């Protein structure tokens, strides 16, 4: 076991105070087995002191044949902190829904202690298992061990990023389709796009089983597949009454919070106008024993979300309001092929699909991928009053 060299970190130590988990505490624990962690703390302390980042990012680092999964990182002060002169990140494709056995977790950690710093991030914002900090010469051996144990690298750069899914029907009764199966199928179908970057920029796919959207697909994914239902909310009146008897204020906490005001409560009976329901899930979340998603289940497919990087954040727009579960995989793949074709042809360097749609206009985009505009694509009525109807021309 390595004897950790003590580096004073007064600024980082501040981040250990308070009741919250601290990444500084965790890195300090890892010093006992990983000498890299000492230099990591030292460089981080220097960055806090000087208010300057000391990592150089990018370049040519990877495993043979792959263009994704490794994010190159070097220290710009290697003479001071030689043990983190290389500190590359590896992204490992997570299992759908993030289900692991203890053995799998132990295997991953053992591999990473042999080939890297031992520090992990479970998980990154796209969903991958993140291995933090290794040297260039350790990348191939680490990759070989990972593949020998059934793991593979995830996406990075201008590739399809590792698809992710919520726990879906494995643990959640609200799942309106099998998110785990779809996520796995898409991952296997698009291996080439995942490992060999073909696009103008990144492309993220996230599968959420219901409108609660536990994977935040509507805010993060270029293609969001969000479970929903077409028929009426399933309602158990006795269970509603039981909630009321237990003290739930159904008028205040359920009816008044419905975004479309589609429910009424007369003190004994809850009436839902399902035609006005926008599937926000609020009432179901408040009274899970009384209300359930309908029986005719499937998903809404949306496009164009992204977090702010080159440009500002975007939320997804509806592309297909409802696809029955049994047609979902085929529809998603057909749609992906059309969207990629258009993006490949017209996308500028580092332009996400949502930005491209903003640039060319949704109408042109829909026309190009062969979809008819439908009312469900409209997120809100237009509030610009300057609309001129050319009634003469229309009548002519």
């Amino acid at each position: 076991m390595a004897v950790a060299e003590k580096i004073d970190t007064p600024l980082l130590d501040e981040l250990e105070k308070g009741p919250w988990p601290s990444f500084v505490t965790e890195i300090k624990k890892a010093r006992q087995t990983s000498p890299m962690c000492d230099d990591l703390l030292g460089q981080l302390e220097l960055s806090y002191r000087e208010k300057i980042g000391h990592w150089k990012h990018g370049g040519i680092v990877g495993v043979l044949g792959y263009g994704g999964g490794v994010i190159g990182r070097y220290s710009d002060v290697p003479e001071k902190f030689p043990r983190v002169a290389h500190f590359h990140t590896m992204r490992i494709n997570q299992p759908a829904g993030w289900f692991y056995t203890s053995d799998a977790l132990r295997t991953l950690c053992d591999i990473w202690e042999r080939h890297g710093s031992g520090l992990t991030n479970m998980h990154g914002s796209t969903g991958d298992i993140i291995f933090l900090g290794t040297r260039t010469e350790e990348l191939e051996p680490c990759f070989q061990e990972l593949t020998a144990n059934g793991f593979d690298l995830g996406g990075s750069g201008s590739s399809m990023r590792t698809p992710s899914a919520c726990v879906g029907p494995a643990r959640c009764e609200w799942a309106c389709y099998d998110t785990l199966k779809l996520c796995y199928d898409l991952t296997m179908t698009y291996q080439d796009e995942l490992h060999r970057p073909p696009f103008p920029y990144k492309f993220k796919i996230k599968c959420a089983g219901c409108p609660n959207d536990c994977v935040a697909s509507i805010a993060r994914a270029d293609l969001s597949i969000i479970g929903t239902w077409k028929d009426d909310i399933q309602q158990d009146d006795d269970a509603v009454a039981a909630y009321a008897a237990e003290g739930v204020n159904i008028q205040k906490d359920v009816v008044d919070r419905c975004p479309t005001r589609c429910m009424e409560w007369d003190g004994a009976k809850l009436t839902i106008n399902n035609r006005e329901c926008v599937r926000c899930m609020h009432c179901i979340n408040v009274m899970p024993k009384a209300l359930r998603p309908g029986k005719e289940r499937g998903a809404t497919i949306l496009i164009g979300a992204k977090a702010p990087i080159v440009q500002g954040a975007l939320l997804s727009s509806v592309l297909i309001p409802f696809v029955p579960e049994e047609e979902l995989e085929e529809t998603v793949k057909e749609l992906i092929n059309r969207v990629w074709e258009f993006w490949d042809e017209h996308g500028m360097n580092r332009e996400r699909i949502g930005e491209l749609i903003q640039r060319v206009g949704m109408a042109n985009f829909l026309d190009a991928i062969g979809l008819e505009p439908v009312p469900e694509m409209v997120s809100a009525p237009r509030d610009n009053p300057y609309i001129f109807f050319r009634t003469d021309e229309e009548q002519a």
Partner: protein
Amino acid sequence: MPVPIEEIAEEMYKMVVECEGKRNLKASDLTKAMIAKYGEENCSKEDCKKALRQLMDSGRTVYSYFGGSYVTLPKKEGAAPD
């Protein structure tokens, strides 16, 4: 007549060599250039994908990342310490 994958790979490699140090090429730049050169009936996107894979698997070219992913010649990483 379909162009052999090896020939497409060779042409792609020449293009990468010519552009080295002048312009970063994306996979799609190479694909579009090959289709323009040979015509879509003789050189499909799928053929270009196979040719690129051949170049990568042989190590003649590598993927690099400079804000986006590019196809470049292998070289010592500029940011790497000596």
